[in-house]
């Protein structure tokens, strides 16, 4: 089962990368841009009998390795089929 994991800087934590990208976009003339954050996108193929089983496994993977809960938030999508 294919799972897509999105890891982003935790809200309230300084995100200098997001800020730098936002400044760069503004300097290109994209004035209406705000709240830019830069994160990580991880794709996994997980052997599981059901989406629930895959979700449970991926949540453990995120908590233990893929994200650092002190500085990052994560969410993921399990692709059907």
């Amino acid at each position, binding site marked *: 089962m294919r799972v897509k994991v999105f890891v982003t800087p935790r809200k309230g*934590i*300084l995100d*200098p*990368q997001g800020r*730098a990208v936002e400044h760069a976009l503004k300097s290109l003339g994209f004035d209406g841009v705000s709240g830019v954050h830069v994160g*990580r996108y991880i794709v996994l193929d997980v052997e599981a009998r059901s989406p629930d089983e895959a979700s449970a496994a991926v949540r453990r993977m995120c908590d233990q*390795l*893929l994200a*650092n809960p*002190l*500085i990052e938030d994560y969410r993921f999508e399990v692709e059907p089929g």
Partner: protein
Amino acid sequence: MKWGVVTFPGSLDDRDTLYALRDVMGQDAVPLWHKDEALGGADCVVLPGGFSYGDYLRCGAIARFSPIMKSIARFAADGGLVMGICNGFQILCEAHLLPGALTRNRSLSFICERVTLRVENSNTPFTRAARAGELWRIPIKHGEGLYVAPDDELRNMEERGQVILRYVASDGRESEAANLNGSTRAVAGVANERFNVFGLMPHPEHAVEPMLGGVDGRRIFESIIESAR
């Protein structure tokens, strides 16, 4: 006393640390490999700087699962002294042996500079030889050294004296400009609650001979030697 210096794939400062300990401080120090499980009878284990596992995913996130880290966690739980320098500090945070996390410098640039550190707590095994408020000139060289911890946790850490080193101006005053990486509350080095695990971004092993531009890094090694007596 005996020292162990761990080499992970991608460690850089393991040899410099061994040199500082053996050749400068006259200590008995053994190299340890990340796949080792024994710690070579060390009284203090040092996790050196570098880019373990290429800093993939997050700095220190993969090294944390090296076989030797299980032994180091047990050693620390038994009260053994553990010091993480730079990448070693990042690994100790990822392993939850130290509170907090290290993330991208505020400037987004890699910083290689000699900085001034103030000893905030001299009643620890790592700063015992110093006076409180003593100023050290020690280099930093990192891209991800901005220290972060939840507000309430950092406040508790400060009350308990776990913030051992802070970045300050050369006259010892706190200054936003002197906090080059943008660390929360200018934190440069922290200990665990039990004060036997210590992590810092600056490199004491690069400040042990006048030829290197200063000898203040010796103060940390001297403190640990004194504590082990």
